[in-house]
């Protein structure tokens, strides 16, 4: 039982260092004091006379991070603006967002840390279906608002979890709107599906199936996001073999690119109808180029690859960044330049940063509606009572009510077109879009897709009324 005789001093030093690391982690963990949030006379966690502490868990590392890691910093830009102008009812907003790497086990730990140790007032703008489903029970048991979850799952509007709510259009709503467009404009053509094999894809397909007659659907192909590593050539080959003339896709941006490239390589150019999750041109364009270069293409081929987006049908629920004359786009751009200049320099105004700004501004209005006497239950009630009247960049108003905890339930169908004004970001110039239908609304159930007849809101002259 003798130890092997390596340099024992070196080993001692390193083991000592390991032990010190261990000791330091233990000490740091045991002595980590909760964030300094004293409580008001009303004893609401996370709320003082001068501040509100909110938290979120988002993927900042890992495969889900690209693109989605821009949303929380964009939200912070809005809070920066609000805080610079005195806060809401005199309270500044402190936003803590932690990285869960899209792993629900991490989300469970970090959310408990935020609630039990850091005493956040509410969980705002956390991302992901499996991740947020993991903490939905805990947050509702603890009566902590879990609001504006960044996911289109149908599960956020559930009476058993009254403290939870969604914000973006549910995937089924989107599927119905795009499915209704396919039914109307490509009647008689053969349709194929390519979808992510999880809640996102399944809910989207549910919506498509509610509109598109099943006889038209000739092929259903899926892929697994966790193991997405290379071109989806098998799925594309199957779609081509089935003769699909229209391909409806529920894909994340990387998968969109990894589907369109092999299709082009085999000379297959169907009409693509893609969920807005995977069709933001400043996000997908660079991926098309970089995947082409990695696959051995020349610089000219990489540039030409972005042209594959021309003619793609997708949908939008707020004015896209290419629409530079839209007053909301101008306000968002200015906000980002002023309050998140490094983020603007890196990504510019794209789908993700627009999403973050719009979501944060919705939350700010919810705080205003809840009033100076701020409580958790009061915040949830204020959204149910006043959410429909919030001013947002969306084409339709938010749907919040005492029974509905979804935000937007409508969008317009748009066509990506090289003749439309492009979206210009620091990374380049990306294909723009034109609307091909009016704004439409529906729900996740059996309501038909109908035209929206109301108006859109215009941004106020100042984002927040300082009172």
């Amino acid at each position, binding site marked *: 039982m003798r130890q092997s005789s390596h340099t024992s001093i070196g080993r001692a030093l390193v083991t000592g260092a390991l032990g010190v690391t261990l000791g330091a982690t*233990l000490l740091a963990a045991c002595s980590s004091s909760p964030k300094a949030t004293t409580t008001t006379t009303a004893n609401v966690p996370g709320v003082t006379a001068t501040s509100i502490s909110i938290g979120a868990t988002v993927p900042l590392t890992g495969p889900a991070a690209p693109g989605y890691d821009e949303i929380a910093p964009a939200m912070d830009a809005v809070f920066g603006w609000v805080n610079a102008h005195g806060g809401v009812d005199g309270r500044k907003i402190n936003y803590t967002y932690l990285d869960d790497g899209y792993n629900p086990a991490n989300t469970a730990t970090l959310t408990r840390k935020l609630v039990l140790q850091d005493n956040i007032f509410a969980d705002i703008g956390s991302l992901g279906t499996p991740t947020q489903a993991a903490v939905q029970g805990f947050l509702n048991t603890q009566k902590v608002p879990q609001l504006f979850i960044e996911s289109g799952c149908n599960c956020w509007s559930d009476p058993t979890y009254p403290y939870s709510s969604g914000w973006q259009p549910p995937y089924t709503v989107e599927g119905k709107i795009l499915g209704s467009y396919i039914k109307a404009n490509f009647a008689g053509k053969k349709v194929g599906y390519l979808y992510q094999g999880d809640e996102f894809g399944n809910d989207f397909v549910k919506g498509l199936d509610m509109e598109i007659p099943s006889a038209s659907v000739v092929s259903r192909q899926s892929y697994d996001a966790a193991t997405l590593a290379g071109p989806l050539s098998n799925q594309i080959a199957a779609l081509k073999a089935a003769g699909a003339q229209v391909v409806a896709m529920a894909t994340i941006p990387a998968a969109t690119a990894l589907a369109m490239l092999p299709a082009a390589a085999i000379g297959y150019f169907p009409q693509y109808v893609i969920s807005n999750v995977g069709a933001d041109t400043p996000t997908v364009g660079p991926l098309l180029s970089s995947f082409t270069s990695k696959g051995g293409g020349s610089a000219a081929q990489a540039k030409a690859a972005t042209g594959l987006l021309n003619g793609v049908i997708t949908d939008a629920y707020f004015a896209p960044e290419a629409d530079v004359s839209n007053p909301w786009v101008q306000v968002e751009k200015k906000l980002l330049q002023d309050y998140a200049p490094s983020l603007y320099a890196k990504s510019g105004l794209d789908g993700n940063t627009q999403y973050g700004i719009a979501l944060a501004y919705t939350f700010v209005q919810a705080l205003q509606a809840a009033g100076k006497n701020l409580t958790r239950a009061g915040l949830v009630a204020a959204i149910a009572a006043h959410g429909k009247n919030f001013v947002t960049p969306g084409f339709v108003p938010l749907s919040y009510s005492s029974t509905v905890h979804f935000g937007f339930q409508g969008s317009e169908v748009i066509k990506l077109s090289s003749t439309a004004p492009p979206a210009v970001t620091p990374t380049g110039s990306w294909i723009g879009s034109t609307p091909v239908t009016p704004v439409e609304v529906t729900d996740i159930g059996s309501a038909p897709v109908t035209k929206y007849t109301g108006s859109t809101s215009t941004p106020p002259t100042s984002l927040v009324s300082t009172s």
Partner: protein
Amino acid sequence: MTPPAVPGLALGRARWFRRLRLPTQPLARHMILALCGAAVLYVVTSSLSPYNDFEVGEIALYVIALSGLSLLTGVNGQISLGHGAFMAVGAYATALLMTHTHLNFLLELLASIGAAAILGLVIGIPATRLKGPYLAGMTLLLALALPPIADKWSTTFGGDQGLTTTVPAAPGTTNPEEWLAWIQIMGALIVVVLLANLLRSRFGRTFRAVRDDEIAASLAGIHVARTKVIAFVISAGCAGLAGAFLGLSTGVVNTGEFPLTLSIQLLAAMVLGGTGTLMGMWWGAVLLVYLPQWSTSLSGDFNLGSGASAYLATIIFGVVLIVAMIAAPTGIQGGLRWAWGRISVFGSRLGVSTPSVSEGPGATLHGPDQVRNSG
């Protein structure tokens, strides 16, 4: 020549102190150590906040998984990069039973152990033919391929939303985090005592014999394949229990909780703690749970952005692992044993006798060096 007067030396030389020994009979010895550990942990959890109790519970559940892995890799010499899959099986077994039946909680845990053990049997049998990188590759495949099966049959397995788990109600006014931590700690102590006894028994010697030299073991009459399969089954069963506990901690079981990185982190934590040891797995589990948080607060002190601080955790973990592999392959527990050995030598020079360490639970003989040679 009288040794120099050192404080405490008198105690060390007192005869009654020298007679204080842990019993050498393994079961008694391990039970006493476990009871002491339980007492310490009870005091610790009672005085900590609910969130810290939650973390202690997480440490305990990782100890279970790591102990099984340590047995398989350190003591039996079979590398496994797929323990995340066994944890997933255990977690889903418990979650499915909780969703569809009203079975007794302990029976559900036993079912998780059983389900994972059956998978361990299925994987362990072909694994007897493989060694080193080939075995690692096969288990890697398992870790990648198994969780997406749950996504494929999402109606049964809950898909992205997953299946919810419910912790049995806490007695009286104990808060739920402390109660769950206690369930997990009890599980960890029971598993560690059982494994410690196993390693001190004929099974333990058989495992080590097969690790060190399969041909010699076979000539000595040991059924090599059967031994390897038994080690796989036990290791998988431990991972299954840990997975069930992970599902209880998280509150929900879905495939996102069992990515490839989990299997790799388990292996890394085992190495850092001390391959082949059981006590070392406590250090490994602490690192696994606390190192990311410590890195985050460190980057907060240096005012890095949230993005950079997230990557810092991964970088630090990787650097610690690389340094440990190069310079201290026996991990923290190996280093502590070495340090205790030096103290014993120093003490004996002064005429004090210190308890011998070589009979501690799960004493490692050759650790990862031997694993490398047999690969």
